């Protein structure tokens, strides 16, 4: 029966896609409720899988049907194991709340049909990615999620100025359609490389089925390791996919621009679904490379973990530092998302560093995935309400909104505190688990980088809360007040969705430690029992309170100055920055996003267009002229001479035919001579 629920999870959202156009004929309100109903059904079916986590001996469950027999065998099925059940629940349940929020947020009009269809397709594709029993269908979900994100980010495809992001002027602004294309291409770069990795792995293993890959690792990993560099190559290719989809360095630059979509889309992409798919896939691949290094004794397999951990750490700090100066609310949250996913990657990466860390790192990464999904969805949905109320995407055009939006303030504060890692909210527990695993790995540089990211996280969280809700009202808000604009909470459905997620965050914080232990037990059983991976019991090398204390210290190190700058306003941030040339340079560096986006635009976008211009304008033009002008002129002259010799009249067609006949005669003669 559980398997049937898994199928239903997949089917409901796609049915929602198909029936939406018909519901639109009944009415736009009916269409909205209908679309939400199917996401509700998917969430319901997914929740019915949860009891499996309390009976882990029944896992994994798998059912598959042959999709393609020849020339390669591919099955289509679902796989229920602790990883897929947990991530599917995160996806389906949080997506449902986002859909409820959309009922109020999205104006009922014809174009919303496309919105609802893409939203349900997005949810269905993500569930396919998570529940698929093999890498082909995981990749199908992966690609469909990419297409849906393109459609949703570029939802306002008329590119009206009010939907542009970036700036504020004179800085560059981006249109929604350009942002959608950027997301599609940047994530696509990772997708394609990952396809290469999967296919190389397929050659050695002969299967795409995830459980078969695990089970037969002892046979195919040594074969792959026999080719020097092959495992390293496959590691890099496979990691490229998650790096792109989860917006990790160096493919992280698409995500800030993805904010051009409606706010619920940002929540869906950044909290619940797409950016989590990379973390999910890395978790899926860990048993393979762990086996390769710790059982098969292939040193190259360690590269997988090293690369993942370093990418995670670098991204966690890099994005958090960019969040310090962001002026667009949703962009600040986007940087935050990139950074937090870096923490997840870091935990998963260090899980392979020694046998004592496998379960701890694996658990920490996924625990942070769950908690982050909840509080970040809440933050994005609240941000949508705030932007709607403030009529601006910029933080410096907000301020003092708490009196108008007290409920939203509470919800957002709960989520922001969790993001900072304030106890006892879930962000504290999950970040603590990540940091502890990192410290236990004794890679102190990684640990230091992660701690620096915690400081930045704390700073930017207090900063955006202060700039939105506290301090003096900006000139823009005053102008709204003057014109009696609606300054208040969102629609009831919006408030309900935000409240549910904030409440969930608070409750999850209370049971956080218990949940972490439960997840730990679950993954211990899965990794060591089902997958027979060896682990070592290790006593803690550091005092248990060290990491929580350090973590709280880092939170305070970021929060206190941010509080004085942006909440109490006892320090004047502009005065401080204007006094220091170094701070101005740092600000500029961070504002320019470490100059990475600018470099990518110059090198990849500009480079590709320049190369295309050269190919078409110079090379192709020269080749075309050579073949179609010079050669024909030469042949024409020769033909003319020949025709002049044999006959008097020489129209153009005759030249050509004479030439063709001459060539044909020559070739036939040559061929016969060879014979």
């Amino acid at each position: 029966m559980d398997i049937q629920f898994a199928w239903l999870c997949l089917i409901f959202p796609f049915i929602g896609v198909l029936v939406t156009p018909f519901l639109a004929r009944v009415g736009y309100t009916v269409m909205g409720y209908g679309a939400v109903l199917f996401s509700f059904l998917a969430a319901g079916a997914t929740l019915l899988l949860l009891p499996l986590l309390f009976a882990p001996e029944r896992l994994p469950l798998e059912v598959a049907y042959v999709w393609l027999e020849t020339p390669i065998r591919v099955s289509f099925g679902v796989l229920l194991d602790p990883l897929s059940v947990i991530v599917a629940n995160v996806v389906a349940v949080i997506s449902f709340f986002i859909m409820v929020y959309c009922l109020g947020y999205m104006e009922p009009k014809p174009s919303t049909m496309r919105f609802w269809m893409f939203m349900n397709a997005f949810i269905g594709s993500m569930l396919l990615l998570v529940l698929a029993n093999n890498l082909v269908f995981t990749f199908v979900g992966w690609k469909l999620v990419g297409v849906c994100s393109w459609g949703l980010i570029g939802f306002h495809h008329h590119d009206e100025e009010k939907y542009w992001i970036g700036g504020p002027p004179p800085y560059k602004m981006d249109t929604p359609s350009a942002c959608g294309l950027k997301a599609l291409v940047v994530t696509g770069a990772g997708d394609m490389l990952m396809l290469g990795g999967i296919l190389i792995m397929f050659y050695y293993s002969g299967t795409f089925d995830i459980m078969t890959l695990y089970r037969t690792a002892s046979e195919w990993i040594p074969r792959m390791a026999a080719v020097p560099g092959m495992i390293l190559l496959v590691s890099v290719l496979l990691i490229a996919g998650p790096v792109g989809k989860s917006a990790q360095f160096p493919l992280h630059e698409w995500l800030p621009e993805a904010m051009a979509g409606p706010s619920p889309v940002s929540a869906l992409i950044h909290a619940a679904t797409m950016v989590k798919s990379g973390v999910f896939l890395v978790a899926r691949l860990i048993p393979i490379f762990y086996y390769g290094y710790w059982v098969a004794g292939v040193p190259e397999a360690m590269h997988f973990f090293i690369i993942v951990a370093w990418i995670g750490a670098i991204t966690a700090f890099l994005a958090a530092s960019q969040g310090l100066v962001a002026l667009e609310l949703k962009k600040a949250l986007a940087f935050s998302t990139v950074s937090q996913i870096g923490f997840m990657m870091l935990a998963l990466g260090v899980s392979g560093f020694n046998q004592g860390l496998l379960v701890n790192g694996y658990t920490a990464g996924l625990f942070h995935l769950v908690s982050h999904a909840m509080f970040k969805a809440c933050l994005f949905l609240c941000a949508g309400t705030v932007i709607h109320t403030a009529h601006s995407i910029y933080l410096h055009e907000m301020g003092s909104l708490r009196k108008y939006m007290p409920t939203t303030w509470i919800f957002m504060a709960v989520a922001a505190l969790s993001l900072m890692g304030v106890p006892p909210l879930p962000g504290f527990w999950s970040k603590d688990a990540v940091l502890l695993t990192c410290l236990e790995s004794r890679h102190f540089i990684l640990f230091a980088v992660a701690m620096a990211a915690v400081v930045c996280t704390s700073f930017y969280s207090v900063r955006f809360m202060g700039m939105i809700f506290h301090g003096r009202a900006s000139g823009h808000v005053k102008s709204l007040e003057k014109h009696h604009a609606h300054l208040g909470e969102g629609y009831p459905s919006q408030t309900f969705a935000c409240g549910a997620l904030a409440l969930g965050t608070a409750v999850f914080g209370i049971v956080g430690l218990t949940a972490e232990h439960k997840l730990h037990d679950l993954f211990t059983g899965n990794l060591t029992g089902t997958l027979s991976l060896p682990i070592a019991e290790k006593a803690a090398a550091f005092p248990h309170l060290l990491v929580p204390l350090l973590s709280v210290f880092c939170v305070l190190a970021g929060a206190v100055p941010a509080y004085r700058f942006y909440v109490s306003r006892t320090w004047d941030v502009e005065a401080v920055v204007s006094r220091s040339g170094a701070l101005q340079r740092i600000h500029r560096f961070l504002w320019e996003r470490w100059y990475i986006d600018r470099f990518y635009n110059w090198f990849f976008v500009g480079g590709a267009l320049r190369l295309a211009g050269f190919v078409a304008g110079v090379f192709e033009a020269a080749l075309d002229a050579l073949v179609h002008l010079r050669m024909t002129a030469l042949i024409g002259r020769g033909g003319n001479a020949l025709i002049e010799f044999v006959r008097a009249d020489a129209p153009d067609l005759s030249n050509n035919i004479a030439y063709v006949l001459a060539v044909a005669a020559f070739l036939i003669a040559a061929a016969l001579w060879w014979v």
Partner: protein
Amino acid sequence: MMSSHVLLQIVFVPALASLGIYLFREPLGKRAGWVAVAGLIYTTVLLVLTGLRIWHGAGSVHETYLLIAPDITLGLMADGLSLAVGLIANVLCLVLATFSIRYIDHRIEIIYEGVGARREASYYTRFYYLFLFFPMGFMGVSFATNLIGMYFFLESLTITLYFLMAYFGYIERVRIAMMCLLWGIFSAVFFLAASLLVYAQLGSFEIARMSALAGNPMAFWVIAIFLIGLFAKLAVFPFHVWMPWVHAEHPTCIAGLLAVYANIAAYIIVRALILPLFHDFQVFGPPIMVLALITMVYGSFLTLAQTDIKRVAACSTISQIAYSMLGIGALTAVSIEGGMFFFLSHIMGKTIFFSTAGIVVYITHIRNIENMGGLAAKMPITAMLFFSGAMMLSGFPPFSSFAAEWILFAGVFERGATDSLALTVGILGVAAILLTVGYTFLAAKKIFFGPLGAGLDKAHIKDPPLSMSIPLILLICLSVAMGLYPRAVMDLLRPVISGALMVV
């Protein structure tokens, strides 16, 4: 159950329909399009029935007709491979014949404005009696059992293209028609030379007998000469220079078939060279893979630079055909089957892409995509068609090109396990798919997104008549069906390709 002479009917019913249109052109007038469509529906049904028979294990269908005693015969043979190629090519002809019913009417109005209704009807019937030589040629190439038969049908395509281009093409139609003819003849000369070489060695043009050449030093030269001719047809770099001109200046309903015309050379390589001469072909594998990679990257950059909507589609063909070539060059059963499947998927995607480009030009009278923009709001169905075409070319699920790409590259990487060149080409090849995503979606963005182009006549911009869009929607459905159930195609290809290579 099957009527006799089924292959003969499949090949020559379009020619008979053509003759009928020609003879009754005056009474038929603009109903000629429906006669062509009826003929093609009939042949499609025959192909489906034959396909089902083969799919259920009938193996293959052979027919031989004595033309001139004692041994000049017309041999036709349908197996899984030729049937798959023939069926998809015929479906595309059917789709484009239906699409053209309104499109070509409009085209004639533009080119031959003021000639009067009678002359217009005359051009209309002329289009259709010429058009029907395409299905005849494609079916003939697909089912011919000997090289001379193939040569004949290939040449019939070249000549048909010449006339259609000269009558119904765009601005420089007569000059480009001549260019197209010359390149066709260039290709044909090599084809004929290689065929004669085979005949000199074996005393036969029969493809089935070509395996007797295996191991013979002359096999190298036979393959090399064939390949030069076929590379020109496939527009492999540096023989691609004709493609942007010819594709761009053809009426768009023909441009879709031009992709088939070019790509069918990949089928000929598999049928006439790889299957009978697999071992002798090995030496050509690495250079073909490298050329394919160069062509796909070069073609992509060429496409990226285009601003003419028709040249975007034209240049992308250069890049896309190279994927089939890559599969063929890797020379594993999986890669060849994947290459053939990709060929079928590509021609469907390209038909959608070209035809939609045609619709845009038909409605807006503009070819420069920089002057377009915002059309999605006014032409939602066309936008949906164009994006589907972009997804088909870029290998997105659920379209058949997704499955084809997986199979093709699985084969390439299979070779890559023992061949570092193939591994490198494979990785660069999958990475190059990103260029396809880039140029198709960038063009789509410029055409359909943003504010409505300043020079566009808002009042007249709307989706085209249903007779133009419905055939394309059905074709998209077919691609989705093949993507969801790729076994339908792979079960046809496998016995022929894997079966033959296992014997070798």
